[in-house]
């Protein structure tokens, strides 16, 4: 039994890191995805192969990069390639196993909005935009989304589809010609959601320690489906926490 205490962001990041299997090729965005990937590569997945959109492939940074173009990535990479090569030769060609994405809004079918809150032409909040996300969501074999749970973020329909999850339900990705499986898991600070195998609707399948189903329902902007059998996230191990904190500087 771990006696450690940990924050809700920490359990989210540790859970995300666990969804990376050793040897996978992982398309890593900055922030939570990068932290989770670097935790994984220092714990159970030493041969995780990280590709950053700046063009570094197979980097093993000794500290957490400050940006997707941090010099430590170039210094430790197997190779540095150009941005067109990253997107054309690696992502579009279907060579990436898993893409990690964040989002400002996500909806019932795991569609992702990072563009705008409100109306596009008269926005309430202007967000950073698409970046690499639309093609990551389209082309990686699978996508894992990491984001904090709230009613503002988990909405019935996103204001803007920046990156397609499961569209409007079953068969939509195939109709759109998207070749990857799309989001297979959404990891939040409360638990884990997965698309239902038949309806493709995001369904609560796991709870972090101490969290109840009602908490998650209250933080979700639609009538959330809950799996019959809910898993309970194992507590972060001491190793996971110490690795994570050494990366984030919280130790």
């Amino acid at each position, binding site marked *: 039994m771990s006696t450690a205490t940990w924050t809700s962001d920490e359990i989210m990041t540790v859970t995300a890191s666990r969804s990376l299997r050793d040897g996978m090729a992982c398309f890593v965005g*900055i*922030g939570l995805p990068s932290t989770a990937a670097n935790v994984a590569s220092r714990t159970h997945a030493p041969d995780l192969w990280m590709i950053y*959109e*700046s*063009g*570094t492939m197979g980097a093993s940074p000794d500290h957490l990069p*400050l*940006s*997707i*173009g*941090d*010099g430590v*990535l*170039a210094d430790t990479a197997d190779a*540095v390639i*150009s*941005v*067109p090569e990253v*997107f*054309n030769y690696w*992502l*579009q060609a279907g060579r990436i196993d898993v893409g990690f994405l964040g989002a400002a809004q996500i909806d019932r079918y795991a569609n992702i909005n990072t*563009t705008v809150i409100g109306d*596009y032409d*008269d*926005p*309430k*909040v*202007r*967000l*950073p*935009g*698409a*970046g*690499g*996300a*639309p*093609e990551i969501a*389209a*082309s990686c074999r699978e996508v894992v989304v990491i984001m904090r749970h709230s009613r503002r973020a988990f909405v019935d329909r996103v204001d*803007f*589809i*920046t*990156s*397609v999850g499961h*569209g409007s339900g079953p068969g*939509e990705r195939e109709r*759109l*010609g*998207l*070749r990857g499986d799309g989001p297979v898991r959404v990891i939040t600070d409360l638990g884990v959601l997965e698309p239902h195998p038949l309806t493709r609707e995001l369904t609560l399948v796991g709870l972090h320690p101490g969290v109840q189903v009602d908490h998650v329902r209250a933080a979700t902007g639609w009538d959330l489906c809950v799996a019959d059998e809910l898993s309970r996230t194992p507590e972060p191990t001491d190793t996971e926490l110490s690795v994570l904190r050494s990366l984030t500087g919280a130790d």
Partner: protein
Amino acid sequence: MPLPLEEAIRGLVHDGDTVALEGFTHLIPVAAGHEIIRQGLRELTLVRMTPDIVYDQLIGAGCARKLVFSWGGNPGVGSLHRFRDAVTHSWPVPLEIEEHSHAGMANRYVAGASGLPFAILRGYSGTDLVEHNPHIKAIACPFTGQELAAVPALNPDVTIIHAQRADTVGNVQLWGITGIQKEAALAAERVLVTVEEVVDHLDPVPGQVILPSRVVDAVSVVPGGAAPSYAHGYYERDNTAYKAWDAIGRDREAFTSWLAELTHTPAPEPAGRGA
């Protein structure tokens, strides 16, 4: 012969031009952006995959009429408040936007560098970007019938990049993360490169990109010209400056003071260690 930055910007950048300043978190041509602000250029169409703080500054200073981009933010810090203010409140002037994905922008530059009118990619399918951007169209493969996205070539009037070194005849060498700079330069009508130093001979470096002098219109020696971003082998990213920008950019008054200070500051000395 290297040109002083002030002279290079005056000669190569004009009101109304389409201008790309590229550099993917590394080698961002910040000093050149500041010189554009100092010279008070107006009505620019600014192009950049990842507009960050120097674009926030250009937008806040009222240089831009339009922004063509794929991700606008203060990397690792947060939002661009001048960009948001321009989009949502037209301050100081309205900002038209045209947005793409990274894959779309990268391929637009590739087409531009290749002398092609458009590029094709698997992208945008099912996204709302399509309906808000007339520059994304569908195209069918003439062999398989598969539907793909087409985007038009991007050919800036001027591309500005920062590089580690140039030689005395104007060949340019950059290395580390080289992003989209080669394509952005080759796609442009005119090219300005600011460099850390000029050397007699460019010793080959692993991972280098060379831009032959015949595609470079002007080289300006501006040591530190990429700060607060970094120049691999020269200096590190000044993360404090990125964080500090958040508070300045968030507030119109703080920004206005910053702008007044910048525009009263003389341009950096044109001749660097290598000149």
